[in-house]
């Protein structure tokens, strides 16, 4: 048992899912999803398009009803419970807003629809970003609209902030500004954040927790530091032997050239790795790509009905 797992028992959980599943027709958009997100973390939810990220977020905010398992936010079911909704700030994909409303209208709307509402916070944020208060938000730039949506989510003073691909449609400058604004805001408040992206690079610097989704399943979940410590890249002479090297729990991904083999492995904490292999630290990007590629291969094999 790792230190992280022990911590999870004493630490408050912002989000917890158990065998969670959601089906559209016969296809599972999310399946057997069990994960814990401790409070206070900034978590990246990473996976390619269609991996189930949006489905997971919608389940967490009570927009969707699970077809299997359960989801808990601060220990409670978010479905049809407005007291849980009050704890969650949610920014949906493409940051939907009433396009004919001005930013002032939207802030006023938030005040009408929430018991806890920090209108000055939203106003100050938008003022400091230079967003015009009296122009319909449909006429603002994509970056400005995203900032308005973020300000609305933050004005709820949420304990859990869920963001679904908030920066996917923004240009690089607006992306950086958005991430800066987000990180500045949550650093002050200690809010737990879960934000999804199909691009890890956008989130790598900001996040300390990682959830990798692929083909409707959780492939990897944990604190970034723990994950980096648990994995190694091993380089050694070519060996297509399917057995795992000594000191290794599992091989996540193996690549072979004519001369050498490169393995991304999960190491055994208490054992020394076979010195025939040269050990390297992994980067977060290597790790995510290895898990995604492996899951992809498995899915393709299943689709072609070929066993590994």
């Amino acid at each position, binding site marked *: 048992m790792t230190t992280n797992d022990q911590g999870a028992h004493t630490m408050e959980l912002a989000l917890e899912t158990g065998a969670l599943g959601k089906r559209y027709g016969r296809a599972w958009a999310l399946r057997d999803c069990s994960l814990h997100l401790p409070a206070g973390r900034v978590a990246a939810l990473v996976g390619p398009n269609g991996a189930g990220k949006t489905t997971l977020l*919608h389940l967490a*905010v*009570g*927009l*969707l*009803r699970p077809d299997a398992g359960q989801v808990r936010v601060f220990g409670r079911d978010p479905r*049809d419970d*407005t*007291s849980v*909704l*009050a704890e*969650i700030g*949610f920014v*949906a*994909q*493409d940051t*939907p*807003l*009433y*396009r*004919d*409303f001005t930013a002032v*209208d939207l802030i*006023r*709307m*938030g005040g*009408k*629809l*929430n*018991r*806890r509402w920090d209108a000055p916070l939203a106003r100050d944020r938008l003022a400091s970003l230079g967003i015009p208060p009296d122009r319909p938000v449909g006429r603002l730039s994509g970056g400005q609209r995203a900032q308005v*949506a973020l300000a*609305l989510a933050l004005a*709820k003073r949420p304990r859990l902030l869920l963001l679904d691909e908030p920066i996917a449609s923004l240009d690089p400058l607006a992306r950086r500004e958005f991430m800066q604004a987000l990180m500045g805001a949550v650093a002050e408040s200690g809010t737990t954040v879960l934000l999804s992206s199909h691009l890890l690079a956008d989130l790598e610097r900001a996040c300390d927790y990682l959830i990798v989704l692929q083909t409707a399943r959780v492939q990897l979940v944990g604190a970034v530091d723990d994950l980096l410590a648990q994995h190694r890249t091993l380089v050694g002479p070519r060996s297509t032997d399917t057995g795992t090297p000594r000191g290794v729990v599992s091989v996540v991904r193996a690549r072979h050239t004519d001369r050498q083999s490169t393995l991304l492995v999960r190491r055994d904490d208490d054992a020394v790795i076979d010195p025939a292999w040269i050990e390297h630290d992994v980067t977060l990007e290597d790790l995510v790509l290895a898990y995604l590629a492996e899951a992809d291969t498995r899915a393709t094999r299943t689709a072609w009905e070929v066993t590994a």
Partner: protein
Amino acid sequence: MIWLTWRQHRKQALFTLIALAVVAAVMVPTGLAMHHRYERSGLAACLADLGDAQMIRQSEAAVHCQALSHQFQQQYSDLAFVAILFVILPVFVGLFFGAPLVAREVEQGTHRLVWTQSVSRRRWALTKFGLVGGVTVVLAVLYAVGVSWWFGPLVTASSGRMGYLSFDVQGVAPVGYTLFAVALGVFAGTLWRKVLPAMGAALVGFAAVRLTVETLARPRYMSPKTLTFSPQSVLRPNPATGDWVYGQGVRDAAGHLVASGAQIGPCAPPGCGGVAAGSYNWQLYQPGSRFWEFQAIETGIFLALTVLLVALAIRRLRDIA
């Protein structure tokens, strides 16, 4: 929620007011002119003189009154077409008030904004449906009262308010139609989730239900009455009762229909030449006095459908994400 509903729909409210003003600008002057003409020509007085007896003596006055009626109808026959516009007005309310209510939110993704604040989906739905429904009722009552007034003289001068076009735009039935149209629009919006397909579906659905009820159900609300009278009789059916006549004809002594759509007489005492003895005039009809019973049944049907559709729409909302 109330503020949000107002903020979202204030443009629609403005357009509705403009449309109402335009309709009123057409209806008030033509209605006044029609009422004026109705009184001045003596038609109102002579129709009142005919009373509400089922059968009346065929008199000079009665013939004169019928001539006045025809004249009046001829003069305003163009306006009768305006009544067709009134028949389709409720469906417009359904299309423009009902269909976008859920469909536009889902189409633009804003349901994910509004349903993730601290207000339950059910409360959101009940507030919105309630407010839009309330405004619809007010509009529909205004419409029904206005059209009943406007159309009154023409209807009384012609076949009466039980007839197809006139029944549909008077009394309380238009309130039922309008609420039904809105509920159908809302429900279609929860199925198609895009404004234009929802509008199209609501339009088709509304036309189908209205036509079905009108042609198949309405004639059967109450069993029709039969009226028979001898060709020799000087008493004829009173044109002022506003009866809804399903059919009329001449039957022979054995009861077989020998002439459809015709009536004979009154003939002088020796009898009508060429007509077998014992023949009589026959008419199958709903009495005009049953107008409010029919209105109540028709409105009840559409209100029940409205409640059903709203309940289904709220059920469907739970599965939208």
